[in-house]
């Protein structure tokens, strides 16, 4: 049981980290609450399934093309539907919800409500002491950590990362300093959707694919982002593992845990917020008036 908790906690935590860091990034840069974020994650998983079963391309190619296509889809949707109504917060919110619903319904129409599966990229397992670790889990963890490190390097070690962080801090001043704010938003959105797509690619072989798989991660992701502090990348990262492990512990330890996993994670979020209203590592955005 202990090993299950550790493995599941790490995997869940990493997937949530990929989702939440991406969401946090685009919220920070564009103040965009992107409800469709996890719908794009689902899109990546479905595209891998389509690539493998309908086009018969190799696994690696399917994964890469699905990630690229998802990013392109995210950028096109932003340009077409979100950008024209950027000034109207409520409308943007509904637009992203509607986009998520459209994506869900398209897959529901195309594939029905069936549970679909994708064969794992790596098979077999090895032993660490007495603990059995599946190669696929290790691969998933490796890819997740790699993607997170790559994002961190991009954000904190390159000039474009600096520009993105500037835009997140103060869009107007960044604009005055000669940063092309619209381009930075597109780049940040590309990174954000890309991370969601990577998360989808990791999840595809580990669990089932169905048209409603985006809802639970969406709720967990929102909880994580609030818990870690909105717009704080570090906070999102740490909170992901807190809630990922909390979920794993509840599922394996508490009776009826599968029903309560969401409740417990969200209760943790609310408790923390009562003590620290700005989240664990909240960046205090100056009041935008």
């Amino acid at each position, binding site marked *: 049981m202990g090993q299950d908790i550790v493995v599941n906690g790490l995997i869940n935590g990493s997937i949530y980290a990929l989702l939440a860091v991406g969401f946090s990034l685009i919220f920070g840069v564009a103040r965009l609450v992107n409800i469709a974020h996890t719908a794009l994650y689902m899109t990546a998983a479905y595209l891998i399934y389509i690539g493998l079963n309908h086009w018969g391309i190799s696994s690696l190619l399917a994964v890469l093309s699905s990630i690229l296509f998802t990013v392109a889809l995210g950028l096109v949707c932003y340009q077409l539907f979100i950008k024209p109504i950027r000034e109207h917060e409520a409308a943007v*919110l509904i637009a992203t919800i*509607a986009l998520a619903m459209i994506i869900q319904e398209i897959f529901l129409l195309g594939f029905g409500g069936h549970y679909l599966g994708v064969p794992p990229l790596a098979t077999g397992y090895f032993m660490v002491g007495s603990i059995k670790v599946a190669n696929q889990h290790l691969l998933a963890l490796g890819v997740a950590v790699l993607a997170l490190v790559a994002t961190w390097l991009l954000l904190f070690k390159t000039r474009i990362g600096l520009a993105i962080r500037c835009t997140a801090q103060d869009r107007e001043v960044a604009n005055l300093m000669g940063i092309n704010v619209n381009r930075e938003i597109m780049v940040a959105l590309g990174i954000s959707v890309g991370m969601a797509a990577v998360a989808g690619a990791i999840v595809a072989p580990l669990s089932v694919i169905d048209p409603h798989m985006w809802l639970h991660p969406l*709720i967990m992701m929102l909880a994580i982002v609030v818990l870690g502090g909105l717009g704080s990348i570090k906070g999102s990262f740490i909170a992901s593992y807190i809630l990922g492990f909390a979920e794993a512990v509840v599922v394996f330890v508490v009776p009826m845990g599968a029903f*309560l996993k969401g409740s417990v994670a969200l209760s943790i979020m*609310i408790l923390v917020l*009562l003590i620290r*209203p700005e989240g664990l590592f909240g960046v205090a955005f100056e009041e935008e008036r």
Partner: protein
Amino acid sequence: MGLIWFYIRKTFTLFRNEVLVLPSRTAVLVFVVVLLLIPVFTHDPYLLRILILTSVFAIFAASWDLLSGFTGQINFGHALFFGVAAYTSGLINVNAKLPHLLTIPLGAVAGVLTGLIVGIPCLRLKGTYLALTTLAFPIILMGLVFAIPEVTGGELGVSGLDRLSASRIHDYYITVILMLVLTSIMWKITDSNTGIILHAIREDEVAVRAGGINTTRYKLLAFCLGGLFAGIAGGLYAHIMRTVGPSTLEVSLSFQVIIWSVFGGIVSIYGPVAGVFILFPLAEFLRLLWPEGRMLIYAILVLLVLLYMPEGLIPWIRDRIEKECPRCKVRSVATRKTCRVCTASLD
């Protein structure tokens, strides 16, 4: 006799000069009259059922507007009030056998208490934090519903509630008249001094606090009012469906109410009501047309309408058929060249 004639003439003049002079007011009048006369012409149970549910959701959407539209405290978990009230009414009705005249108000009281319980901790939070935290509460409660199926019935929910009334026509009149009365009350609240303060809180909370107003108290009041009206809607829904399931707490219901409201146009009360009366029957109509793809068409329609009318459908239409006088801020028909009150030029 002369006095009676005087009053009749006065009422008629008032009616002509205050109601018929503006297309939006005439539209509301026609809407109310048509809604009240529908059962005279048709007894089609399917149509009446759709209109009954539409009225219930209209109360629900208007309560969201009262809480979130007016104060700007976006509530992502409005289904919480609806679900709590529906479950309260259902459980009391089934277990204690109280009549619905008592259970629906008790459900509304439960809604108010929920508003307090959620509001007190949440009002330390602002903006997006608040929105995303409120999303959590119905999901936590849903987990509990599934975890203790002995009390709540788990996935199947509570069933076997009393009917609202003996016949569907009665049901229809009860819900429609309640809807008209409650939305009028909500509209009056938003038009009062309290409503103006709620408006001001959305525009600039710091300025309101600087004006010596306890904004937290007003925001809590908004939460309670939202809970009250959503609670009435929830209790009604429980007795109309005669069963209460976890669907009343679902995230999709919380999202749905936001879609209805924003589609109709927030900060107006009549906007969300119109939104529900357009979108809910539309969804049912699409179910007949193409059952598998109805949500797809629905979502695409919402997206496209918002793309061209980000303020919402009703404010967009109103701005086309009416103009606001630049001098005295009174609205006139768009066809007029001059203001109907102060005769200033309208262009």
